[in-house]
């Protein structure tokens, strides 16, 4: 029994494959023939075209991209881009440090200024810690403002006398 007759595709395939491969060969042959002819034609380009192409090539070579490794210095082998980042980061850190230091200095000088004012004042420093003295000052200021509004010098004098009688003696707290 002929097995080939049971499967018709097996009888067709070899011829089909052969025909296909012959077609491919012909196509390749045509392509290569045409390509050879085109190559010959390249030798007949006009001088103007050749000159322009040369200028274009020189321009392209002048802007050739260099890799990052090519930019690195030999000994230190520093990556140029990461060096930029590192420098920027360092600059930011230094700036933040300087700002913080200036703020601290300003704060300290303010404290020193206040301390100097307190110590050089005629009022003893303990008075500032006394709540009664604070109340006394508050009341005195309020009455001074009222007196200024009324514009009566006698009233201002009376109010200050009364505030002195009412305020407790700071020396009693010691």
């Amino acid at each position: 029994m002929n097995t080939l007759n049971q499967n018709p595709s097996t009888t067709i395939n070899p011829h089909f494959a052969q025909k296909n491969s012959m077609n491919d060969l012909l196509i390749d042959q045509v392509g290569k023939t045409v390509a050879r002819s085109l190559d010959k034609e390249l030798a007949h380009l006009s001088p103007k075209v050749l000159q322009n192409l040369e200028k274009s090539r020189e321009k392209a070579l002048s802007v050739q991209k260099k890799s990052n490794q090519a930019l690195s210095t030999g000994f230190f082998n520093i990556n140029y881009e990461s060096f930029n980042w590192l420098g920027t980061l360092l600059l930011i850190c230094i700036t933040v440090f300087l700002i913080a230091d200036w703020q601290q200095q300003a704060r300290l000088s303010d404290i020193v200024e206040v301390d100097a004012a307190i110590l050089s004042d005629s009022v003893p420093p303990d008075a500032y810690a006394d709540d009664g003295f604070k109340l006394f000052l508050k009341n005195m200021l309020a009455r001074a403002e009222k007196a200024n509004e009324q514009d009566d010098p006698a009233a201002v004098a009376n109010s200050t006398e009364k505030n002195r009688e009412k305020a407790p003696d700071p020396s009693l707290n010691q």
Partner: protein
Amino acid sequence: MASAKELSDFLKSSEKRAFKQVLYAVRDEDAALDIVQDAMIKLSQSYGDKNIEELPLLFTRIVQNCTKDWFRRQKVRNTWVTLFSKFKKNDADEDAHPEDFLENPETSSFGQESSKQLERMELSTILEKEIEKLPNRQREAFLMRYWEELDISETASAMGCSEGSVKTHCSRACHTLALALKKLGISF
């Protein structure tokens, strides 16, 4: 990384072929020179640090893209012209893209032409004309496959299509050119 000399040698070996390929597509010598210059600069600027083995395929792709960009710019420039021409006549192919424009020579008229001009024109000139008449995709596939000697997968990658499409385009282009060569007395 390709050295300056390697890049220079590569460009020297490829520039003429690239110019001719672009010339077949745009049919304008000055435009073809501009496109090739743009392609060379882009290759050098963006891929000048690649290995020399990668440059041929990259350059082919860049040339293709630059050519397409040129067609797009031409289309934009011609928009107003097309708009005004609409008022004059109904243009059947007003929606056609320049890069997809197909030109198929009538074999009968070509046969008459070749019989008159056969003695005057050289084989290469006739072939160039035939290549110019090919549809864009067939011409691209044919030139990349047989002139630049890229393999099928590289050609497919450069053209952005499948390997089967490349084979089809090449086959059809070769059949058209084989007919033209047959009329010149060259048979395969």
